[in-house]
Protein backbone atom coordinates (compact mmCIF):
# COMPACT_ATOMS: atom_id res chain seq x y z
CA UNK A 1 0.00 0.00 0.00
CA UNK A 2 1.32 3.43 -0.92
CA UNK A 3 1.27 6.33 1.47
CA UNK A 4 -0.94 9.02 -0.05
CA UNK A 5 -0.96 12.24 1.93
CA UNK A 6 -4.22 14.12 2.31
CA UNK A 7 -5.00 16.87 -0.15
CA UNK A 8 -6.34 20.23 0.92
CA UNK A 9 -9.60 19.06 -0.61
CA UNK A 10 -9.62 15.99 1.69
CA UNK A 11 -8.98 18.15 4.73
CA UNK A 12 -11.75 20.56 3.85
CA UNK A 13 -14.23 17.71 3.38
CA UNK A 14 -13.31 16.16 6.74
CA UNK A 15 -13.45 19.45 8.62
CA UNK A 16 -16.85 20.16 7.10
CA UNK A 17 -18.06 16.71 8.13
CA UNK A 18 -17.16 17.25 11.80
CA UNK A 19 -18.30 20.90 11.74
CA UNK A 20 -14.91 22.56 12.28
CA UNK A 21 -13.80 25.63 10.38
CA UNK A 22 -10.08 24.95 10.55
CA UNK A 23 -7.71 22.38 12.01
CA UNK A 24 -6.91 24.60 15.01
CA UNK A 25 -10.56 24.19 16.08
CA UNK A 26 -9.86 20.54 16.79
CA UNK A 27 -7.46 21.53 19.57
CA UNK A 28 -9.78 23.96 21.34
CA UNK A 29 -9.98 21.66 24.40
CA UNK A 30 -6.22 22.03 24.94
CA UNK A 31 -5.55 25.01 27.24
CA UNK A 32 -4.34 28.04 25.30
CA UNK A 33 -1.00 28.17 27.10
CA UNK A 34 -0.20 24.58 26.17
CA UNK A 35 -1.00 25.02 22.48
CA UNK A 36 1.79 25.39 19.90
CA UNK A 37 4.65 25.50 22.39
CA UNK A 38 7.98 26.84 21.18
CA UNK A 39 10.87 24.44 21.62
CA UNK A 40 14.36 25.75 22.04
CA UNK A 41 16.03 23.08 19.95
CA UNK A 42 19.13 23.20 17.79
CA UNK A 43 18.62 22.87 14.03
CA UNK A 44 18.53 19.34 12.62
CA UNK A 45 21.84 17.54 12.10
CA UNK A 46 23.21 14.75 9.99
CA UNK A 47 23.41 11.14 11.17
CA UNK A 48 27.12 11.29 12.04
CA UNK A 49 26.72 14.49 14.08
CA UNK A 50 23.72 13.10 15.97
CA UNK A 51 25.67 9.94 16.78
CA UNK A 52 28.56 12.00 18.12
CA UNK A 53 26.28 14.15 20.29
CA UNK A 54 24.39 11.20 21.72
CA UNK A 55 27.60 9.31 22.41
CA UNK A 56 28.75 12.30 24.42
CA UNK A 57 25.47 12.30 26.37
CA UNK A 58 25.78 8.57 27.03
CA UNK A 59 29.34 9.00 28.30
CA UNK A 60 27.98 11.12 31.15
CA UNK A 61 26.38 8.01 32.64
CA UNK A 62 28.29 5.80 35.00
CA UNK A 63 27.24 2.21 34.46
CA UNK A 64 26.95 -0.33 37.24
CA UNK A 65 29.82 -2.36 35.80
CA UNK A 66 32.31 0.52 36.12
CA UNK A 67 32.24 0.80 39.89
CA UNK A 68 31.50 -0.98 43.14
CA UNK A 69 27.73 -0.95 42.82
CA UNK A 70 25.34 -1.07 45.79
CA UNK A 71 22.15 0.54 44.44
CA UNK A 72 18.82 -1.25 44.72
CA UNK A 73 15.54 0.33 45.78
CA UNK A 74 13.52 -1.39 43.08
CA UNK A 75 16.09 -2.58 40.53
CA UNK A 76 18.92 -5.00 41.30
CA UNK A 77 22.15 -5.92 39.64
CA UNK A 78 22.50 -9.68 39.36
CA UNK A 79 24.63 -11.94 37.25
CA UNK A 80 22.87 -13.04 34.07
CA UNK A 81 24.26 -16.24 32.58
CA UNK A 82 25.38 -15.80 28.95
CA UNK A 83 23.01 -18.59 27.94
CA UNK A 84 20.01 -16.38 28.80
CA UNK A 85 21.02 -13.77 26.24
CA UNK A 86 21.91 -16.41 23.69
CA UNK A 87 18.55 -18.13 23.98
CA UNK A 88 16.32 -15.05 24.00
CA UNK A 89 18.07 -13.79 20.87
CA UNK A 90 16.95 -16.77 18.85
CA UNK A 91 14.67 -15.34 16.17
CA UNK A 92 11.73 -17.55 17.18
CA UNK A 93 11.69 -15.74 20.50
CA UNK A 94 13.12 -12.34 19.70
CA UNK A 95 10.64 -11.35 16.99
CA UNK A 96 7.47 -12.89 18.32
CA UNK A 97 4.91 -10.63 19.89
CA UNK A 98 2.07 -11.86 22.09
CA UNK A 99 0.36 -13.60 19.22
CA UNK A 100 -2.90 -12.46 17.65
CA UNK A 101 -3.62 -15.95 16.43
CA UNK A 102 -2.21 -17.45 19.59
CA UNK A 103 -2.71 -21.17 19.14
CA UNK A 104 -0.56 -21.27 16.02
CA UNK A 105 2.45 -20.30 18.18
CA UNK A 106 2.57 -23.30 20.51
CA UNK A 107 6.17 -22.64 21.55
CA UNK A 108 5.43 -19.08 22.63
CA UNK A 109 2.38 -20.21 24.58
CA UNK A 110 4.37 -22.96 26.25
CA UNK A 111 7.04 -20.51 27.44
CA UNK A 112 4.29 -18.27 28.84
CA UNK A 113 2.72 -21.26 30.55
CA UNK A 114 6.07 -22.23 32.08
CA UNK A 115 6.56 -18.61 33.18
CA UNK A 116 3.18 -18.58 34.91
CA UNK A 117 3.98 -21.87 36.61
CA UNK A 118 7.25 -20.43 37.93
CA UNK A 119 5.60 -17.22 39.16
CA UNK A 120 2.89 -19.21 40.92
CA UNK A 121 5.51 -21.45 42.58
CA UNK A 122 7.71 -18.51 43.56
CA UNK A 123 4.89 -16.51 45.16
CA UNK A 124 3.06 -19.59 46.52
CA UNK A 125 -0.13 -18.41 44.79
CA UNK A 126 -2.48 -20.72 42.83
CA UNK A 127 -2.62 -18.70 39.57
CA UNK A 128 -0.35 -16.24 37.75
CA UNK A 129 -0.75 -14.37 34.48
CA UNK A 130 1.56 -14.11 31.46
CA UNK A 131 3.21 -10.96 32.97
CA UNK A 132 2.59 -7.23 33.22
CA UNK A 133 4.70 -4.28 32.04
CA UNK A 134 6.56 -4.01 35.34
CA UNK A 135 6.09 -4.22 39.10
CA UNK A 136 4.59 -0.77 39.56
CA UNK A 137 1.91 -1.02 36.87
CA UNK A 138 1.19 -4.52 38.19
CA UNK A 139 0.63 -3.04 41.65
CA UNK A 140 -1.81 -0.50 40.22
CA UNK A 141 -3.63 -3.28 38.38
CA UNK A 142 -3.83 -5.19 41.66
CA UNK A 143 -5.62 -2.25 43.27
CA UNK A 144 -8.10 -2.03 40.38
CA UNK A 145 -8.62 -5.78 40.58
CA UNK A 146 -9.37 -5.47 44.30
CA UNK A 147 -12.04 -2.89 43.41
CA UNK A 148 -13.69 -5.41 41.10
CA UNK A 149 -13.47 -8.30 43.55
CA UNK A 150 -14.79 -6.45 46.58
CA UNK A 151 -17.10 -3.92 44.96
CA UNK A 152 -15.34 -1.27 47.10
CA UNK A 153 -13.04 1.51 45.98
CA UNK A 154 -10.76 2.52 48.85
CA UNK A 155 -7.13 1.44 48.93
CA UNK A 156 -4.67 1.74 51.84
CA UNK A 157 -1.00 1.95 50.85
CA UNK A 158 1.87 1.22 53.19
CA UNK A 159 4.12 4.23 53.73
CA UNK A 160 7.04 1.91 53.02
CA UNK A 161 5.75 0.92 49.60
CA UNK A 162 8.24 2.15 46.99
CA UNK A 163 7.14 5.76 46.30
CA UNK A 164 7.32 5.22 42.53
CA UNK A 165 4.87 2.33 42.94
CA UNK A 166 2.59 4.49 45.10
CA UNK A 167 2.72 7.20 42.46
CA UNK A 168 1.88 4.74 39.69
CA UNK A 169 -1.07 3.47 41.74
CA UNK A 170 -2.29 7.04 42.21
CA UNK A 171 -1.95 7.69 38.48
CA UNK A 172 -3.75 4.55 37.36
CA UNK A 173 -6.28 4.05 40.16
CA UNK A 174 -6.58 7.54 41.64
CA UNK A 175 -9.66 8.39 39.63
CA UNK A 176 -11.26 5.02 40.36
CA UNK A 177 -11.36 5.45 44.12
CA UNK A 178 -9.87 6.84 47.29
CA UNK A 179 -6.22 6.13 48.06
CA UNK A 180 -4.90 6.51 51.59
CA UNK A 181 -1.13 6.43 52.10
CA UNK A 182 0.29 5.72 55.54
CA UNK A 183 3.19 7.86 56.81
CA UNK A 184 6.67 6.59 55.96
CA UNK A 185 8.26 4.69 58.84
CA UNK A 186 11.72 3.32 58.02
CA UNK A 187 12.59 0.20 59.97
CA UNK A 188 9.53 0.46 62.21
CA UNK A 189 6.28 -1.48 62.33
CA UNK A 190 3.35 0.25 60.66
CA UNK A 191 -0.15 0.51 62.13
CA UNK A 192 -1.82 -0.32 58.83
CA UNK A 193 -4.60 -2.43 60.35
CA UNK A 194 -6.07 0.70 61.96
CA UNK A 195 -6.49 2.30 58.51
CA UNK A 196 -8.60 -0.55 57.12
CA UNK A 197 -12.35 0.08 57.33
CA UNK A 198 -15.53 -1.48 55.93
CA UNK A 199 -15.14 0.44 52.68
CA UNK A 200 -11.55 -0.68 52.06
CA UNK A 201 -10.98 -2.82 48.97
CA UNK A 202 -7.36 -3.62 49.74
CA UNK A 203 -4.25 -2.82 51.68
CA UNK A 204 -1.01 -2.73 49.68
CA UNK A 205 2.23 -3.62 51.40
CA UNK A 206 5.73 -4.29 50.07
CA UNK A 207 7.93 -7.09 51.37
CA UNK A 208 10.85 -6.62 51.76
CA UNK A 209 9.77 -2.98 51.94
CA UNK A 210 11.55 -0.10 50.18
CA UNK A 211 14.00 0.21 53.11
CA UNK A 212 14.75 -3.51 53.01
CA UNK A 213 12.76 -4.64 56.07
CA UNK A 214 11.33 -8.13 55.88
CA UNK A 215 7.98 -8.58 57.60
CA UNK A 216 5.57 -11.23 58.78
CA UNK A 217 2.35 -10.26 57.01
CA UNK A 218 -0.08 -12.81 58.44
CA UNK A 219 -1.50 -10.45 61.11
CA UNK A 220 -2.11 -7.79 58.46
CA UNK A 221 -3.80 -10.37 56.19
CA UNK A 222 -6.08 -11.37 59.08
CA UNK A 223 -6.91 -7.73 59.84
CA UNK A 224 -7.74 -7.06 56.18
CA UNK A 225 -9.86 -10.19 55.81
CA UNK A 226 -11.76 -9.38 59.02
CA UNK A 227 -12.97 -6.20 57.30
CA UNK A 228 -13.65 -7.93 53.98
CA UNK A 229 -10.61 -6.30 52.35
CA UNK A 230 -7.88 -7.98 50.32
CA UNK A 231 -4.16 -8.07 51.05
CA UNK A 232 -2.04 -7.04 48.07
CA UNK A 233 1.62 -7.94 48.51
CA UNK A 234 4.23 -6.20 46.36
CA UNK A 235 7.88 -7.10 45.96
CA UNK A 236 10.69 -5.48 44.00
CA UNK A 237 13.36 -8.13 44.57
CA UNK A 238 12.22 -11.48 43.17
CA UNK A 239 15.37 -13.26 44.40
CA UNK A 240 14.20 -12.66 48.00
CA UNK A 241 11.52 -15.30 47.45
CA UNK A 242 14.25 -17.92 47.39
CA UNK A 243 14.74 -17.32 51.10
CA UNK A 244 11.88 -15.47 52.80
CA UNK A 245 8.27 -16.58 53.28
CA UNK A 246 6.36 -16.13 50.01
CA UNK A 247 3.27 -13.86 49.98
CA UNK A 248 0.94 -16.83 49.44
CA UNK A 249 2.09 -18.39 52.71
CA UNK A 250 1.19 -15.21 54.60
CA UNK A 251 -2.38 -14.78 53.41
CA UNK A 252 -1.91 -12.61 50.31
CA UNK A 253 -4.92 -12.38 47.99
CA UNK A 254 -3.12 -10.68 45.10
CA UNK A 255 0.63 -10.47 44.49
CA UNK A 256 2.34 -7.99 42.17
CA UNK A 257 6.10 -7.86 41.86
CA UNK A 258 9.04 -6.88 39.73
CA UNK A 259 10.80 -9.74 37.96
CA UNK A 260 13.82 -7.80 36.67
CA UNK A 261 16.19 -9.46 39.15
CA UNK A 262 16.00 -12.74 37.31
CA UNK A 263 17.38 -12.76 33.78
CA UNK A 264 16.95 -9.04 33.09
CA UNK A 265 19.65 -6.39 33.16
CA UNK A 266 19.28 -3.01 34.90
CA UNK A 267 19.29 -1.25 31.50
CA UNK A 268 18.91 2.19 33.11
CA UNK A 269 15.35 1.39 34.19
CA UNK A 270 13.69 -0.90 31.69
CA UNK A 271 12.11 -2.72 30.01
CA UNK A 272 11.28 -4.88 33.00
CA UNK A 273 8.69 -7.54 33.66
CA UNK A 274 5.77 -7.49 36.10
CA UNK A 275 4.87 -10.67 37.94
CA UNK A 276 1.20 -10.99 38.87
CA UNK A 277 -0.52 -13.76 40.82
CA UNK A 278 -3.76 -14.25 42.67
CA UNK A 279 -5.96 -16.62 44.59
CA UNK A 280 -7.89 -19.04 42.39
CA UNK A 281 -11.32 -17.58 43.20
CA UNK A 282 -10.38 -14.18 41.79
CA UNK A 283 -9.02 -15.61 38.52
CA UNK A 284 -11.70 -14.02 36.32
CA UNK A 285 -10.94 -10.58 37.69
CA UNK A 286 -7.21 -10.86 36.89
CA UNK A 287 -5.79 -8.43 34.35
CA UNK A 288 -3.55 -9.47 31.49
CA UNK A 289 -3.24 -12.59 29.42
CA UNK A 290 -3.36 -16.17 30.58
CA UNK A 291 -1.82 -19.16 28.86
CA UNK A 292 -3.56 -22.44 29.62
CA UNK A 293 -2.71 -26.07 29.07
CA UNK A 294 -5.19 -28.38 27.39
CA UNK A 295 -5.39 -31.39 25.08
CA UNK A 296 -6.14 -31.33 21.37
CA UNK A 297 -8.68 -33.51 19.57
CA UNK A 298 -6.20 -36.40 19.56
CA UNK A 299 -5.47 -36.11 23.26
CA UNK A 300 -2.06 -34.50 22.84
CA UNK A 301 -0.89 -31.74 25.14
CA UNK A 302 -1.36 -28.22 23.76
CA UNK A 303 -1.50 -24.62 24.92
CA UNK A 304 -4.07 -21.87 24.47
CA UNK A 305 -4.63 -18.31 25.53
CA UNK A 306 -7.54 -18.82 27.86
CA UNK A 307 -10.26 -16.71 29.50
CA UNK A 308 -9.66 -14.09 26.83
CA UNK A 309 -13.29 -12.96 26.98
CA UNK A 310 -12.13 -10.81 29.96
CA UNK A 311 -9.86 -8.83 27.67
CA UNK A 312 -10.40 -5.55 25.90
CA UNK A 313 -10.58 -6.80 22.33
CA UNK A 314 -13.73 -8.66 23.38
CA UNK A 315 -15.09 -6.86 26.43
CA UNK A 316 -14.18 -3.37 25.28
CA UNK A 317 -14.62 -0.85 28.10
CA UNK A 318 -15.71 -3.59 30.49
CA UNK A 319 -12.44 -5.51 30.17
CA UNK A 320 -10.61 -6.41 33.40
CA UNK A 321 -7.78 -4.12 32.30
CA UNK A 322 -6.36 -2.32 29.30
CA UNK A 323 -3.41 -4.65 29.28
CA UNK A 324 -3.77 -7.15 26.49
CA UNK A 325 -0.11 -7.73 26.06
CA UNK A 326 2.76 -8.82 28.23
CA UNK A 327 6.48 -8.32 28.58
CA UNK A 328 7.09 -11.39 26.48
CA UNK A 329 10.85 -11.25 25.96
CA UNK A 330 11.63 -10.12 29.52
CA UNK A 331 9.32 -12.85 30.83
CA UNK A 332 11.20 -15.36 28.72
CA UNK A 333 14.55 -14.17 30.09
CA UNK A 334 13.11 -14.54 33.60
CA UNK A 335 11.91 -18.07 32.81
CA UNK A 336 15.19 -19.17 31.29
CA UNK A 337 17.17 -17.85 34.24
CA UNK A 338 14.77 -19.52 36.68
CA UNK A 339 15.05 -22.78 34.75
CA UNK A 340 18.85 -22.62 34.79
CA UNK A 341 18.83 -21.99 38.53
CA UNK A 342 16.17 -24.51 39.48
CA UNK A 343 14.68 -24.72 42.94
CA UNK A 344 17.97 -25.42 44.71
CA UNK A 345 19.93 -22.92 42.62
CA UNK A 346 17.50 -20.13 43.47
CA UNK A 347 17.74 -20.90 47.18
CA UNK A 348 21.55 -20.88 46.98
CA UNK A 349 21.51 -17.60 45.09
CA UNK A 350 19.20 -16.07 47.69
CA UNK A 351 21.42 -17.26 50.55
CA UNK A 352 24.48 -15.84 48.83
CA UNK A 353 22.73 -12.48 48.43
CA UNK A 354 21.75 -12.43 52.07
CA UNK A 355 25.25 -13.42 53.17
CA UNK A 356 26.80 -10.59 51.10
CA UNK A 357 24.38 -8.06 52.54
CA UNK A 358 25.03 -9.24 56.10
CA UNK A 359 28.80 -9.03 55.53
CA UNK A 360 28.44 -5.52 54.13
CA UNK A 361 26.11 -4.32 56.89
CA UNK A 362 28.46 -5.69 59.53
CA UNK A 363 31.44 -3.86 58.06
CA UNK A 364 29.62 -0.57 57.45
CA UNK A 365 27.95 -0.37 60.85
CA UNK A 366 31.36 -0.79 62.49
CA UNK A 367 32.12 2.74 61.24
CA UNK A 368 31.42 5.28 64.01
CA UNK A 369 28.13 7.17 63.46
CA UNK A 370 26.69 4.61 61.03
CA UNK A 371 23.60 2.87 62.32
CA UNK A 372 21.50 0.01 60.89
CA UNK A 373 17.84 1.05 60.72
CA UNK A 374 16.42 -2.22 59.37
CA UNK A 375 17.51 -5.09 61.61
CA UNK A 376 15.64 -7.78 59.62
CA UNK A 377 16.57 -7.68 55.95
CA UNK A 378 17.27 -9.83 52.88
CA UNK A 379 19.84 -8.29 50.50
CA UNK A 380 19.02 -4.66 51.12
CA UNK A 381 19.10 -2.54 54.26
CA UNK A 382 18.98 1.08 55.33
CA UNK A 383 21.67 2.97 57.17
CA UNK A 384 21.42 6.18 59.17
CA UNK A 385 24.55 8.19 58.35
CA UNK A 386 25.81 11.27 60.22
CA UNK A 387 25.33 13.65 57.27
CA UNK A 388 22.87 13.95 54.35
CA UNK A 389 22.86 10.63 52.51
CA UNK A 390 22.74 12.31 49.09
CA UNK A 391 26.07 14.03 49.85
CA UNK A 392 27.63 10.76 50.99
CA UNK A 393 26.56 9.11 47.73
CA UNK A 394 28.00 11.96 45.65
CA UNK A 395 31.32 11.91 47.50
CA UNK A 396 31.70 8.13 47.25
CA UNK A 397 31.01 8.24 43.52
CA UNK A 398 34.29 10.14 43.14
CA UNK A 399 35.94 7.04 44.60
CA UNK A 400 34.17 4.63 42.20
CA UNK A 401 31.63 3.47 44.74
CA UNK A 402 27.90 3.74 44.07
CA UNK A 403 26.92 3.61 47.69
CA UNK A 404 23.17 3.14 47.38
CA UNK A 405 20.03 5.21 46.95
CA UNK A 406 19.51 8.14 49.33
CA UNK A 407 15.97 7.82 50.73
CA UNK A 408 15.53 11.56 50.17
CA UNK A 409 15.51 10.89 46.42
CA UNK A 410 12.39 8.78 46.86
CA UNK A 411 10.75 10.69 49.71
CA UNK A 412 11.11 14.32 48.79
CA UNK A 413 11.19 16.55 51.83
CA UNK A 414 10.63 13.86 54.49
CA UNK A 415 12.97 14.92 57.32
CA UNK A 416 13.55 11.40 58.67
CA UNK A 417 14.76 10.32 55.22
CA UNK A 418 17.46 12.99 54.86
CA UNK A 419 20.23 10.93 56.46
CA UNK A 420 18.92 7.55 55.32
CA UNK A 421 20.82 5.48 52.77
CA UNK A 422 19.26 2.41 51.13
CA UNK A 423 22.02 -0.10 50.36
CA UNK A 424 21.77 -3.35 48.38
CA UNK A 425 24.32 -6.12 48.00
CA UNK A 426 24.04 -9.03 45.60
CA UNK A 427 26.14 -11.98 44.45
CA UNK A 428 27.85 -9.58 42.02
CA UNK A 429 29.55 -7.67 44.85
CA UNK A 430 33.02 -9.02 45.54
CA UNK A 431 34.96 -8.94 48.80
CA UNK A 432 37.00 -6.24 47.12
CA UNK A 433 33.85 -4.11 46.47
CA UNK A 434 32.78 -4.46 50.09
CA UNK A 435 36.27 -3.57 51.32
CA UNK A 436 36.44 -0.51 49.09
CA UNK A 437 32.99 0.71 50.18
CA UNK A 438 33.90 0.32 53.85
CA UNK A 439 37.24 2.13 53.46
CA UNK A 440 35.83 5.00 51.41
CA UNK A 441 32.77 5.51 53.63
CA UNK A 442 35.02 5.65 56.71
CA UNK A 443 37.17 8.26 54.96
CA UNK A 444 34.20 10.37 53.85
CA UNK A 445 32.68 10.33 57.33
CA UNK A 446 35.94 10.85 59.21
Amino acid sequence: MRYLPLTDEDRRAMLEQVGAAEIADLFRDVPEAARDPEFDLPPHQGEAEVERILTRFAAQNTSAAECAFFCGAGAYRHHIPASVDYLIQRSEFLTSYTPYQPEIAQGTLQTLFEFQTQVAALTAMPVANASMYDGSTGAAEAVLMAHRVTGRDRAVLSGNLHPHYAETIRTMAGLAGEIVTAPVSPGKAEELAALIDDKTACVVVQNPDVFGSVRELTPLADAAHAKGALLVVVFTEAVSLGLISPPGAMGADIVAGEGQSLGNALSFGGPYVGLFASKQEYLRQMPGRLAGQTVDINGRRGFVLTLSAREQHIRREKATSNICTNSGLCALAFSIHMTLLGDIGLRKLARLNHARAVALATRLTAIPGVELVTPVFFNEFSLRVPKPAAEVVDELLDHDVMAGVPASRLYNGAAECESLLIVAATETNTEDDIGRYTRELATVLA
Partner: protein
Amino acid sequence: MAELRFTESHEWVSAENGIASIGITRYAADQLGDIVHVELPQPGKKLEAGGEAAVVESVKAASEIYTPLAGEVTETNRGLESDLSRINAEPEQCWFFRVKLSDATQLDRLMTRQQYDDYLKGL
Protein backbone atom coordinates in the same frame (compact mmCIF):
# COMPACT_ATOMS: atom_id res chain seq x y z
CA MET B 1 -45.04 -21.49 34.02
CA ALA B 2 -46.46 -18.36 32.43
CA GLU B 3 -46.20 -17.77 28.73
CA LEU B 4 -42.78 -16.43 27.76
CA ARG B 5 -42.17 -12.95 26.44
CA PHE B 6 -39.06 -11.92 24.50
CA THR B 7 -36.78 -8.94 23.93
CA GLU B 8 -34.83 -7.72 20.92
CA SER B 9 -31.62 -8.34 22.88
CA HIS B 10 -32.61 -12.02 23.16
CA GLU B 11 -33.74 -12.39 26.74
CA TRP B 12 -36.87 -14.30 27.67
CA VAL B 13 -39.14 -13.30 30.54
CA SER B 14 -41.66 -15.33 32.45
CA ALA B 15 -43.76 -13.33 34.89
CA GLU B 16 -46.10 -14.59 37.60
CA ASN B 17 -47.56 -12.74 40.58
CA GLY B 18 -45.42 -9.69 40.00
CA ILE B 19 -42.15 -11.67 39.89
CA ALA B 20 -40.34 -12.09 36.57
CA SER B 21 -37.79 -14.80 35.80
CA ILE B 22 -35.29 -13.80 33.14
CA GLY B 23 -33.02 -15.93 30.95
CA ILE B 24 -31.49 -15.97 27.47
CA THR B 25 -33.15 -17.37 24.35
CA ARG B 26 -32.14 -20.37 22.29
CA TYR B 27 -30.93 -17.98 19.59
CA ALA B 28 -28.68 -16.17 22.08
CA ALA B 29 -27.29 -19.41 23.48
CA ASP B 30 -26.55 -20.74 19.98
CA GLN B 31 -24.87 -17.50 18.94
CA LEU B 32 -22.66 -17.38 22.04
CA GLY B 33 -21.52 -20.99 21.79
CA ASP B 34 -20.35 -22.99 24.80
CA ILE B 35 -20.99 -20.90 27.88
CA VAL B 36 -18.15 -20.97 30.39
CA HIS B 37 -19.15 -18.40 33.00
CA VAL B 38 -22.06 -16.37 34.27
CA GLU B 39 -21.94 -13.36 36.53
CA LEU B 40 -25.20 -12.88 38.43
CA PRO B 41 -26.46 -9.72 40.16
CA GLN B 42 -26.66 -9.33 43.92
CA PRO B 43 -30.14 -9.97 45.34
CA GLY B 44 -31.58 -6.66 46.51
CA LYS B 45 -30.07 -4.76 43.59
CA LYS B 46 -32.52 -2.34 41.97
CA LEU B 47 -32.55 -2.46 38.20
CA GLU B 48 -33.82 0.03 35.63
CA ALA B 49 -35.71 -1.27 32.60
CA GLY B 50 -33.09 -1.92 29.94
CA GLY B 51 -30.28 -1.91 32.51
CA GLU B 52 -27.42 -4.40 32.67
CA ALA B 53 -28.21 -7.20 35.06
CA ALA B 54 -25.84 -10.10 34.42
CA VAL B 55 -22.96 -11.20 32.23
CA VAL B 56 -22.73 -14.39 30.24
CA GLU B 57 -19.39 -15.48 28.88
CA SER B 58 -18.63 -18.10 26.27
CA VAL B 59 -15.31 -19.33 24.98
CA LYS B 60 -14.98 -16.43 22.56
CA ALA B 61 -17.35 -13.72 23.73
CA ALA B 62 -18.89 -12.06 26.73
CA SER B 63 -22.27 -10.34 26.68
CA GLU B 64 -24.44 -8.39 29.05
CA ILE B 65 -27.88 -9.63 29.93
CA TYR B 66 -30.31 -6.73 30.21
CA THR B 67 -33.45 -6.70 32.23
CA PRO B 68 -36.33 -5.48 30.09
CA LEU B 69 -38.34 -4.77 33.23
CA ALA B 70 -37.54 -2.48 36.14
CA GLY B 71 -37.53 -3.91 39.64
CA GLU B 72 -35.53 -5.35 42.48
CA VAL B 73 -33.54 -8.58 42.17
CA THR B 74 -35.12 -11.11 44.51
CA GLU B 75 -33.18 -14.24 43.66
CA THR B 76 -30.39 -15.54 41.43
CA ASN B 77 -30.00 -19.04 40.00
CA ARG B 78 -26.76 -20.14 41.68
CA GLY B 79 -27.35 -23.68 40.41
CA LEU B 80 -26.41 -22.54 36.89
CA GLU B 81 -22.79 -22.10 37.87
CA SER B 82 -22.29 -25.79 38.60
CA ASP B 83 -23.63 -26.92 35.21
CA LEU B 84 -23.21 -24.20 32.61
CA SER B 85 -23.78 -26.62 29.72
CA ARG B 86 -27.48 -26.68 30.66
CA ILE B 87 -27.78 -23.10 29.39
CA ASN B 88 -26.78 -24.27 25.92
CA ALA B 89 -28.89 -27.45 26.14
CA GLU B 90 -32.14 -25.97 27.43
CA PRO B 91 -31.89 -22.19 27.62
CA GLU B 92 -35.58 -21.62 28.29
CA GLN B 93 -35.36 -23.77 31.42
CA CYS B 94 -32.44 -21.75 32.79
CA TRP B 95 -33.51 -18.54 34.48
CA PHE B 96 -30.62 -16.32 35.57
CA PHE B 97 -32.30 -14.02 38.06
CA ARG B 98 -35.73 -12.99 39.31
CA VAL B 99 -37.03 -9.47 39.60
CA LYS B 100 -39.90 -8.11 41.70
CA LEU B 101 -41.55 -5.89 39.12
CA SER B 102 -42.11 -2.25 39.91
CA ASP B 103 -44.45 -1.90 36.93
CA ALA B 104 -46.08 -5.08 35.62
CA THR B 105 -47.50 -3.26 32.59
CA GLN B 106 -43.96 -3.06 31.15
CA LEU B 107 -44.43 -6.72 30.31
CA ASP B 108 -46.95 -5.84 27.61
CA ARG B 109 -44.25 -4.05 25.62
CA LEU B 110 -42.30 -7.28 25.10
CA MET B 111 -42.68 -9.60 22.13
CA THR B 112 -44.78 -12.76 22.12
CA ARG B 113 -43.16 -15.94 20.86
CA GLN B 114 -44.74 -15.45 17.45
CA GLN B 115 -43.47 -11.88 17.27
CA TYR B 116 -39.99 -12.93 18.40
CA ASP B 117 -39.83 -15.73 15.81
CA ASP B 118 -40.78 -13.20 13.12
CA TYR B 119 -38.13 -10.83 14.50
CA LEU B 120 -35.47 -13.56 14.25
CA LYS B 121 -36.39 -14.24 10.61
CA GLY B 122 -35.61 -10.62 9.85
CA LEU B 123 -32.09 -10.75 11.37
